[in-house]
């Protein structure tokens, strides 16, 4: 399998202290990897390091075998896209305009969006189930609708890897499931790799191929959901007693707080 992203002994320090220490992990093509861990365990920092929003003081990040430092910003945006937790738009844009922003790294200085850009954007909106929102102002959308538009914007970048920072945290049950179903189908149909930070342990367990469990900036455990989500691991990292069994319907690990 093709290796997309490769973190080698990455360490990142804020003024207040180390947020990531000695983190090594890989993401292969067509993989859905969940990043779990309690608040402050370094999940969001990990995503920012992966897209060079933050530059680690230690270690190296390789994108398709090449140091991420060697990429220009637009070149990086053609490889990696980000779906943020929330994106507030100060000025009014239609959803189609927002999705077309994803075409920026593919366009020249004086280019206007051409037919292909438009086709890619509409196709991304279809894939993210938000084509019907194209003409609506982004600020008028509900949380679930907005999240799908932001996902479509990421897909319009035509990236090999999509990073998602708690995309489901403001959503209700149905939308949460919808987003994970969507990610799962994107992975299968487009061969896109996905790295998702989430607080939804059960949904991550069900949909992710692999789980990386972070604890205070270090990788505590890594592997399939079944390997990582043991009662011992979860209790140790989250500091609260749990029981883990298998969901009788889906068969994936189910974590219950005791």
């Amino acid at each position, binding site marked *: 399998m093709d290796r997309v992203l490769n973190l080698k002994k990455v360490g990142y320090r804020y*003024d207040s202290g180390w947020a990531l220490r000695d983190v090594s992990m890989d993401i292969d093509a067509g993989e859905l990897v969940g990043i779990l861990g309690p608040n402050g365990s370094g999940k969001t920092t990990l995503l920012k390091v992966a897209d060079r929003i933050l530059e680690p003081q230690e270690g190296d990040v390789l994108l398709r075998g090449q140091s991420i430092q060697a990429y220009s*910003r637009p070149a990086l945006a053609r490889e990696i896209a980000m779906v943020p937790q929330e994106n507030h738009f100060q000025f009014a*844009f*239609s959803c189609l305009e927002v999705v077309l922003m994803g075409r920026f790294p593919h366009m020249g200085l004086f280019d206007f969006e051409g037919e292909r850009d*438009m086709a890619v954007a509409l196709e991304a909106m279809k894939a993210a189930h938000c084509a019907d929102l194209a003409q609506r*102002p982004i600020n008028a959308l509900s949380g679930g609708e907005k999240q799908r538009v932001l996902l479509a914007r990421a897909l319009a970048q035509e990236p090999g890897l999509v990073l998602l920072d708690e995309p489901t945290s403001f959503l209700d049950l149905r939308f949460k499931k919808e987003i994970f179903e969507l990610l799962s189908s994107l992975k299968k149909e487009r061969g896109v790799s996905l790295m998702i930070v989430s607080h939804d342990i059960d949904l991550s367990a069900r949909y992710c191929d692999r789980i990386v469990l972070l604890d205070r900036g270090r990788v505590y455990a890594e592997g399939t959901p079944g390997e990582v989500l043991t009662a011992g691991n979860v209790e140790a990292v989250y500091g609260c007693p749990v029981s883990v069994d298998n969901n009788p319907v889906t068969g994936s690990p189910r974590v219950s707080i005791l």
Partner: protein
Amino acid sequence: MGLQSSEEAEMGTLGKPVTAAKVVKVSVVLITILVITVIVATMIGTATVTWEQLWNVLSGHARETDPAKLVIFRIRLPRIILAGLVGFSLSLGGVVFQALLRNPLADPFILGVSSGSAFGAVIGIMFGFSFTFGIPALAFGGALLTMYLVLVVGRKKIGMESSTIILAGVIINAFFTAVIMFFIATAVNDQLHTMLFWLYGDLSQSRFGELAIAGPAVLVGFVILYCFGKHLNLITAGEEAALHLGVDVGKAKLVCFLVVSLVVGLVVAFSGLIGFVGLVIPHLCRMLFGSDHRLLMPASALGGAIFLIAADTLARTVISPSELPVGVITAFLGAPFFIYLLRKRGSRWTGS
């Protein structure tokens, strides 16, 4: 569904992505309006110029001593062109500052950039520098200094809080205005024509020599800023989002801040402080044409030129033969208009 369809009707063309053809179309319409405004403004004033006189002068048939020729070339045209340039620059500056700081309240006047460059220009005059190089250079320096101070004072530990930046701008604006007043009050030098010039703006001292410097510089500045139209669109969606989408945010911001300070600094050196243009015109254009900077920048700049020429024509005719400072007119028209616009179009398309 009722809500959705009324939303779409309200949007009209706003939701449609901007095309090159649309930019050209809007620009041509606005340039036509601008030319008409210039012609009308040339004809009205204390001494009325008739169509026939205007035609004679423009076609070169008028004698050297023709009073109409003197009025048009010596008095009115330089002033009208300066008004156009100043309106163009302040409005463009408003659009760019609003995008860079992600704040709809930003404009060269409120951020203190105007008073900073006026401060530079006053110093230049005190030292007897020339209007061809020294004073514009100092005005640019003053604009840059203010921009730097605003960004440093307004910078919090993590990122930039844009309301803090506006506050910093207001404070620095007040400080520089006080410094200018001090200089004016203590100066016996009659080169500082009037206090009103600096504090309310005055376009009556325009000369072609100055226009020959400011004009090309402003146009070059516009072209550079226009190259960053798409970058500005993405920066308004957040600096981190812009990075993820492939914008080299640091570089884009540096270039835009430098160029916009240069453009604003230059025109303020010749016009004094004129408020409201950079606030009202960009908002009006955003409501008419949407938020895409590739259309918003030319539309606002041309709209600002039209607006300030019209305002200055009013300023010199409304209590003729005396004159009002043009800043009085812009504030007088601008403030109520702004409130009207805010109330008329809800908040959905203005984003607040």
